């Protein structure tokens, strides 16, 4: 079998020296480049498949880059306060449920809840991170699974819900920045991450709650 490898990190592709490699300077998570842009995706595939005619191993560069400046944040409205007795993050998550279900109906579920927790479990999972942020040791906080996996499902629940609210595909990382920096639950996850770090919890248990740039040393 002949292989053509796509890669978003050029130096790693050079290091692994695949038989045929196409280095694409696209954001991590989007190796074919642009979502919902069949023409662009076909250009990437055409370049990749053209490499099957090579007579010796090599890495080529796709000529177009998709830069990320690290600043673009999704603008997405959040639900108003509904239940004054609930923590703002829990209230917020409940308020996004209709949008989440609508997004699942339209797009299917690829990154939303479902790996560690169901959508029904998201509010209670957020409560466990609230407890950590307020000082409860993580082992006693009743996280319903591996912390990183549960946090991934919560992030996915929010980013999936946002697709239904804004009705367009966000720029790369813009959805994450919205979740992490603009939502009540994002603040809770960050606070829990900081609390676990401060409590000298094993690094891999808190580091992967959010992308690597989220923790300020």
């Amino acid at each position: 079998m002949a292989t053509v490898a796509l890669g978003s990190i050029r130096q790693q592709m050079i290091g692994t020296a695949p038989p045929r490699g196409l280095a694409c300077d696209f954001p991590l998570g989007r190796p074919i480049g642009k979502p919902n842009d069949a023409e662009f995706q076909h250009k990437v595939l055409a370049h990749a498949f053209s490499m099957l005619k090579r007579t010796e191993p090599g890495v080529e560069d796709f000529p177009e880059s998709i830069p990320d400046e690290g600043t673009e944040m999704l603008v997405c409205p959040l639900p108003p306060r509904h239940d004054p007795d609930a923590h703002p993050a829990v209230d917020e998550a409940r308020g996004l449920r209709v949008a989440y279900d609508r997004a699942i109906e339209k797009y299917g579920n690829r990154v939303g809840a479902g790996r560690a927790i169901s959508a029904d479990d998201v509010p209670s999972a957020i409560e466990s991170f609230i407890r950590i942020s307020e000082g409860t040791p993580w082992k006693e906080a009743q996280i319903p699974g591996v912390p990183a996996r549960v946090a991934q499902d919560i992030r996915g629940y929010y980013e999936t819900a946002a697709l239904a609210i804004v009705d367009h595909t966000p720029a790369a990382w813009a959805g994450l920045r919205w979740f992490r920096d603009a939502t009540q639950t994002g603040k809770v996850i960050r606070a829990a991450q900081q609390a676990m770090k401060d409590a000298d919890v094993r690094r891999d248990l808190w580091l992967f709650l959010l992308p690597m740039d989220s923790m300020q040393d």
Partner: protein
Amino acid sequence: MADQDIKRAVQDIECPVVEQPAFTTPPPLEEATVAIVTSASLHHPDQDDFAPKDTSYRVLDASRRDYLVGHWSPNFDTAGVAADLNVVFPLDRLDELAAQGRIGKVADQHLAFAGNQFDLAQIRMDGGPAGAAFLKEQGVDVVLLTPV
């Protein structure tokens, strides 16, 4: 921090060196059977999720579009694949190429591995060869490898 910063932070991670890459010449693309092998930890909802150090693979049914992304690292944009599976796993694009006669056939089954690997010996000696053997049994000529 931007996407490029995350890439810079991981670009120097030591890579396994393959002494003799398997460079082969396939049949003409318009006669070839093409499969995708992705390291995005894709799986159908009724399959087991990937464990943190999983070196096995999942067989993906090309007639389905219900895929979960099981990659353990949070260091990738998730909104893109949430909105369009093809930005990671371009099955619709391959179907279009097959309909145009530009590739011979899209394989009925594709494979997913976990991109976050720790035990390279295990995947080089077991999961990887087993996946390749599976694809060869399906008559696959060309494999497109996609990350996440």
